[in-house]
C-alpha cells in the first residue's frame, strides 16, 4: 500500500509540513534580501557608468564577452541539473548524481571566472571596469561558493545517512531555490557588464 502511494507521489515533492513551509518562507526572505544586495550593486554600477562619456571608459578594451558567455552557459546547465536533482529527490542515488553534476558545474564556473579576472587584472587601464567586475562577480562567486558548501552538506546525506524521501526533498528544494537565484543574478550581471 505504501509502495503504491510512493509511486503516485508527484515528481517534485510538495511542501509537506508546517516546518518545511517555514523553511521555504525563510529562504524566500533571504533571497529577497539577496536580490536587494545585487540590485544595490547593479544600481551603483549604473550610476558610475552613467557618469562616463563613453562606455567602456576611454582606453579600455571591451570586457571579454566570449569567456563570460562560456561562464553563463555552464551556470545555465548547472541550474538544469539542479532542477533534475529536485525532480528525482525520491530516488537518493539519482538525486545524488544530479547534485554531484551541479557541484561539478559550479566548480567549473568558478574556474572559468579566473581567465576573465586575469584578463581584467592584466590591463591597468581597465580601472572602473576592474572595480565593477571585482565587486559584482566577486560577490556572486562568494555566494556561489557558499551554495557549493550547502550542496556538499546535502550530497553525502542523500547517499549514506538517514534523510530520505521527504526530508531529502526539503533540503534539495532549499538548495535549488538558492542556486536558481544565483543563476538569475549572474544573468543580470552578464547582460549589464558584458553584453550591453
Amino acid at each position: 500500500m505504501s509502495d503504491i502511494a510512493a509511486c503516485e507521489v508527484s515528481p517534485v515533492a510538495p511542501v509537506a509540513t508546517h516546518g518545511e513551509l517555514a523553511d521555504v518562507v525563510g529562504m524566500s526572505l533571504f533571497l529577497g534580501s539577496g536580490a536587494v544586495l545585487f540590485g544595490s550593486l547593479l544600481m551603483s554600477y549604473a550610476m558610475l557608468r552613467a557618469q562616463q562619456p563613453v562606455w567602456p571608459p576611454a582606453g579600455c578594451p571591451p570586457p571579454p564577452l566570449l569567456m563570460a558567455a562560456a561562464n553563463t552557459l555552464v551556470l545555465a546547465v548547472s541550474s538544469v541539473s539542479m532542477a533534475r536533482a529536485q525532480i528525482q529527490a525520491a530516488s537518493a542515488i539519482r538525486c545524488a548524481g544530479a547534485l554531484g553534476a551541479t557541484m561539478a558545474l559550479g566548480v567549473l564556473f568558478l574556474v572559468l571566472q579566473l581567465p576573465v579576472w586575469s584578463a581584467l587584472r592584466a590591463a591597468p587601464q581597465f580601472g572602473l571596469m576592474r572595480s565593477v567586475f571585482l565587486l559584482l562577480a566577486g560577490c556572486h562567486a562568494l555566494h556561489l561558493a557558499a551554495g557549493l558548501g550547502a550542496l556538499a552538506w546535502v550530497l553525502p546525506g542523500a547517499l549514506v545517512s538517514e534523510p530520505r524521501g521527504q526530508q531529502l526533498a526539503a533540503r534539495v528544494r532549499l538548495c535549488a531555490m538558492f542556486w536558481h537565484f544565483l543563476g538569475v543574478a549572474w544573468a543580470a550581471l552578464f547582460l549589464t557588464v558584458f553584453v550591453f
Partner: protein
Amino acid sequence: MHDAHHAEPTGFLSRVVFSRDHKVIAKQFLLLGLLFLGLGGVLALLIRWQLAFPGKPVPIVGQYLFSATAGAISPEGYTMLFTMHGTIMIFFAITPMLIGAFGNLCIPLMIGARDMAFPFLNMLSFWVAAASGVVLAGSFFVEGGAAMAGWTAYPPLSGATATPGLGQTLWAVSLFLGGVSTLMGAINYVTTILMLRAPGMGFFRMPLSVWGLGLAAVLNILFVPVIAAALLMLILDRVANTGFFVSGAQPGSAGDPLLFQHLFWIFGHPEVYILILPAWGIVSDLLAVFSRKPAFGFKATAIAMSSIVVLSTVVYGHHMYTVGLSPGLGKAFMSLTMLISIPSSVLFLNWLGTIWRGSIRLEPAMLFALGVVFVFGMGGLTGLFLGAITTDIYLHDTAFVVGHFHYTMAASVLFGSLAAIYFWFPKMFGRMLCPELARLHFWFTFLPLNLVFFPMLIEGYGGMPRRLYEPTSYKYLVQFQPVNQLITFAAMVLGLAQLIFVWNVARSLWAGERAPANPWEATTLEWLTPSPPPHENFDVIPDVHRGPHEHSRPDVPDRDWIGQWESQAPETPLTPPAPPSDSEAVAV
C-alpha cells in the same frame, strides 16, 4: 519539525553560552546592548567635556586616556569620540537592546510560540553581533586609533587617503558583520510571525509590540543589504585600491563620493524607523496596560505604522538637500517627507486617546512610556524644520540636527528600551525591580535629558555647527559657552543617574522580590506563563480568543482585564459571571 518538543539542554555551554533558547539569547543581547550603552555614554560625556571646557584636561580619566596631550582631547581624538559615540549607540546599544533583546523575548512569547522559527540561526545572530562588537571595540587599540570619519563615514573622508588607519577599515568590517547579524535576526522574526502564531492569533490580534518589531524586521530585510553594498565598496576602496567613491585612484577610474551618500541614506532613513518602530509598538501596548483601557484606534495604529514603513523607503533624499540635488527631486522628497506627518499624527493622537480618561497607573514602565510620547513629540515637531528644504538649508549640519535626532532616535528609543526593561524584567528574570528607585531613575533621566537636548536646538538655531571641536574659536559662538556648560552638567547628571538603574538591576537580581506570572495585570500571552517562562514557554500552546488589550470590560466581573488566552470571563465567588452571549456581543 518546528512544532515538536525539544528536551531542555543541560550543559552550561548549551544552556547559557551557545543557547538556542530565544529567552536566553534575549538576555545576551540585553547585556551586550547595556555594555555598549555604557561605553557610548562615556564617549558622549567626553565630547561634552570638550565642548564645555575646550582644550582643558579631562578630570580623573584624562591622564590615562589622553596621556600624549596631558589629559586634553586632541582634534583627532575628538573626531574619533563623536564617530564612535554615534556608531556604538545606533548599532551596538539601541539595536541589540530593542531589536535583539526585546525582539527575541517578545515575539515568540506574545504570539504563543515555543521559540523562533530558526533557533540555530538565532544563536548565530547573537554571536555574529558579539564578534562585530569585539571588532569595533578592538579598533580603539589599533595604530592610529578608531574610525574618525563620522558615523555616516562619507567618502572621501572615509577613504584610504583621508583616514589611512586600520581603525576605519575595522569600522566598516564591524558594521558589515553587524548587518549580517541583523539580517539573520530579521529573517527569523518575520518567519516566526508569519508561521508560528498560536491558533486564533490573527494579525489584528497581535500586540502592537509584535507589529512594531515585525515591521522593523521587514525594513531590515529590505535595507540592510543596501548598506552592506555600500560597505563592501568602501572596504574594497580601502583595501583593494578600487575606485567606487574616489576619483583618480586608478587610471580610467571615476568614482563618485555621492554614490555612497545615496546608498547610506537609502538604508539610513529606514534605519531610523527600524529603531523607532519597536519603541512605538511597545509604547502603544504599555499605554493601554497602564491606562487600563484598550489601545485607542488599535487597527489604525497598526495601519499607521505600516504606512510609515512604506513611506520611509522613499524619503531618504531629505538627508541630502544640500548636496546639489535637482530642485525638482528635492521638492519630491520634501513632499513625501511631509506625508509622513499624517500617519505619525494618527499614531500620536491614538496614544493620547489611549490615556485619555484612563485609570492611569504610574508604574515606572508607564512613566518611561509617557516619556517616549513627550520626546517623540519633540523629535517629530523639530523634524518638520529639517524636512522642509528652506529651513533645512539653514539648519543643516548644526546642533539643531543633533538635538532633533537625539530626541527622535536616542531619547525616544532609550526611553522605549527602559520602559521595556521595567515592564518585562519580571518576566525575563523572575524578579521585581524596586519601583521607588525606578521612579527616581526616571526623573533623573527625563529632566536632565531635556536640559541636554533642548538647548542644542537653540544653539543650532543660533548657527552652531555640529561636530565642532572648539566652539569658542568663532566669535559669534562665544555667547553660547554658558549653554554648552549647562548641557555638559546636565549630561553628567544624566550619566550618573544611570547608576541608580544599574544598582536597581543588580540588587533585584540578587535579592529582588519574586515576580508573579502577571504582575501588571496585562492581557497578552507572555503573562500566561510563569516568570521566568519555562523551556519552550508554554505547557500547552494557548488558544487565542480576543484582541491584545481587553481592559475594563463591563461584562468581566471584579477585575479590569481579561487575557487573550481566556475563552470567557473567569467565574468568581462574589459576582455571577456574565452570560456568554453578552460577552460575545461585546467582543464583536
